């Protein structure tokens, strides 16, 4: 049996929404080079809807596939819905990830939330802080 599902390999080989959005409304970056994965999400938001999303990822196959799938799941969705995105939804959409790769889906969820938080902060919009875990410690990562 292969390491990854066909869905994961498809999103890894043909990642959707790779790139950068200049003057993005929200940008979120999580992970660090020491751990071996960094995800960066760029959001374009018009009238509370994510009209465009791009990502850049440094990481393994499942990190790239998780980023790609996560962007697909939130593209065109209202911000209120994007806020509900969980890593579990990313994993299910990818037809599963190996247990030791689940943290890649967590990074994708956190990167999107961090980008949303950036959007709120930039625009002075009030929000429920409990919805945004503090990612700076990056607890999923290796000891530095």
């Amino acid at each position, binding site marked *: 049996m292969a390491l990854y599902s066909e869905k994961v*390999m498809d999103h*890894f*080989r043909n*990642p959707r929404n*790779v790139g950068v959005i200049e003057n993005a409304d929200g940008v979120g*970056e999580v992970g660090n*080079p*020491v*751990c*071996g*994965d*960094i*995800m*960066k999400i760029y959001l374009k938001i018009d009238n509370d809807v994510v009209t465009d999303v791009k990502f*850049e*990822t*440094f*990481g*393994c*196959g499942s*990190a*790239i596939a998780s980023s790609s799938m996560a962007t697909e799941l939130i593209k065109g969705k209202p911000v209120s819905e994007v806020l509900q995105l969980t890593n579990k939804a990313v994993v299910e959409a990818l037809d599963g990830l190996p247990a*030791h*790769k689940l943290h890649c889906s967590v990074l994708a969820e956190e990167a999107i939330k961090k980008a949303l938080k950036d959007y709120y902060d930039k625009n002075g919009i009030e929000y429920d802080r409990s919805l945004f875990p503090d990612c700076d410690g990056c607890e999923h*990562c*290796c*000891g*530095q």
Partner: protein
Amino acid sequence: MIYADNASTTKMSITAINAMLPYFDNIYGNPSSLYAFGQEAKEALEDCRARVAACLNCEPREITFTSGGSEADNQAIISAARFGAKKGKKHIISTAFEHHAVLHTLKALEKEGFEITLLDVHTTGLVTPEQVRDAIRDDTCLVTIMFANNEIGTVEPIKEIAEVCREKKVVFHTDAVQAVGHVKVDVQEQNIDMLSISAHKFHGPKGVGVLYAKKGIPLTSVINGGAQERGKRAGTENIAGIAGMTAALEEACKNIDENAAKTIPLRDRLIAGLDKIPYGELNGTLEKRLPGNVNFCFEGIEGESLLLLLDDKGVCASSGSACTSGSLDPSHVLLAIGRPHEVAHGSLRLTINEEFTEKDIDYIIEAVTDVVTYLRNMSPFWRDLVNGARPHVFAK
């Protein structure tokens, strides 16, 4: 497909396959049986022992057949430790970049009260005889240093290290799994007391290996049971495997110079090609290196995605990234030669042999260059390196 992972395992040679076949159906007797049919197998076993001994330049009774390199490493280290402990010596010297078969065995002994010194291997991936001399104490019972490293292919000055050990009367073991059949190994000329071999690294079968132990060094059994292998390794002998290994070893040793002469220029062509990729560097010294080993670190990318995309292009390779090692940290070998985590995650090992062509090499260079460029273009880490937000590790 281009199989460039020969340090992981090799294709069996036809000679080795043919040498095994009689022992599956015609000569399937148990060497421990009294009747002639069993004794025929026993004769074959002892013939193999003599031929393996001839390849290593030792006596047949100094050869113990094992299930492979890991078992040989375990038994060598445990035997030398028990032998030392009887005389009150419980200090062992090794290096930081040994195979886990050695490091984990040492870790277990440390829990039993042994003291372990791991020598620095420098950025070159080489340890010096002087380091060994300085580290030896009155209570040192064993020095165990690999002949050649499995990841970066550096070949240690074994003869000179072993000479220091002989002079200081300390048992010297070497994990020669990557070396035997690829570089010259002669236990007498090189002063080696104990040595581990694995057959599948030189076109022999998997699941069989050798522990050489100089006479006078008592072996401790790690597989207990019957009296096979003079009571030092229980279990009915893997005659077919041993016959295949013996044939493969003879073939590899006979052709060692010829194979190296073919492989080294190909290796150097591959190194020169990959060196053109910016912000990448060869791991381990070029001068003292196995004929078929190439190992690079590239900034800004991660090894697993590199391997998956190379696989799509038909190239089988390996990496020391955390994601491929199954742990959170990248390869201990790359960390031991001073590579920081962030570039150790972007490592690539290609291990070739004499059957490669220049066309294969050029194809690999093109494939690696394309994949590294592609992955860097989607890497926020690479973007930070390019625009100066993070410092480069390599000068160019």
